[in-house]
C-alpha cells in the first residue's frame, strides 16, 4: 500500500491537512502490514501538520510498531527530521 500525501492534500502545512491524512495512516497501521508514505511533490512539512497526521498514531501504536510498518519515501531532509523528531519526542514523553 502506498499513501501519496499529494493525492490527499495540496501541502503539508496545516493541522487541517494533517487531519485529512491521519485516517489513511490509521487504516494502514490497522492492517498490521508494512506500508509506504510518499511525500513526492511535497517540499516541506510543518510541526502542525506532523502533530495532526502522525503523532496521534502513538496514542494507539507504539513507536516501535510505527517504525516497523511505515516507510517514508520521496521525502526531504526537513520533512524526515520533523517526523522523526516529533515522534521520538512524544514517545519519550510517554515513557517518562
Amino acid at each position, binding site marked *: 500500500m502506498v499513501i501519496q500525501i499529494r493525492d490527499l492534500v495540496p501541502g503539508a502545512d496545516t493541522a487541517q491537512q494533517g487531519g485529512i491524512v491521519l485516517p489513511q495512516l490509521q487504516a494502514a497501521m490497522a492492517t498490521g502490514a508494512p506500508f509506504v508514505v510518499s511525500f513526492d511533490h511535497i517540499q516541506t512539512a510543518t*510541526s502542525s501538520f506532523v502533530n495532526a497526521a502522525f503523532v496521534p498514531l502513538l496514542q494507539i501504536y507504539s513507536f516501535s510498531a510505527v517504525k516497523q510498518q511505515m516507510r517514508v519515501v520521496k521525502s526531504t531532509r526537513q520533512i524526515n527530521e520533523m517526523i522523526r523528531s516529533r515522534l521520538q519526542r512524544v514517545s519519550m514523553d510517554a515513557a517518562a
Partner: protein
Amino acid sequence: MDVSIADFGLGIPAKVRETVKDLSDPQAVIQAVQEGFTSKSTPGNAGLGLDSLLKTVVGSGIGEVTIYSLHAIVRFRSGTNGQISPFPVENVGFCPGTTIEIKLRTDLIEQLPDEREELEW
C-alpha cells in the same frame, strides 16, 4: 537576510499570563519559547513552533531571532557553548501584538541536495 513577521493579537505576554501569572513581559516571552509550552490558542498546539524556530535559526548557528511583544524585546543568540540564550533588551516602546524578526547568515546556510530521501529512523 532579514525576515519579519507581525500580528496585532493580544501579544505573547498576555497569552502566557493566562497560564503562568505574574511574569513580566520579557519573562513571558522567554517562557513562551520553551519546548512544550503552549497557550493552546489553537487546539492541537504542542508548544513547538517557537522552540523549533529558535533551534533551526539560532541553535544551528545561522542567525538570531528577536521577539517584540508588548513591552518586551528579547533577542535570542547562540552562546559560545552553542546554547540558545535570551537577551532582554531595555525597551521604552510598545509593540501591539507580536513581531518576530529573523536575521539569517546566508553565507552559513547549508545548501541541501535536491535528491529525495527515505526516512531513516
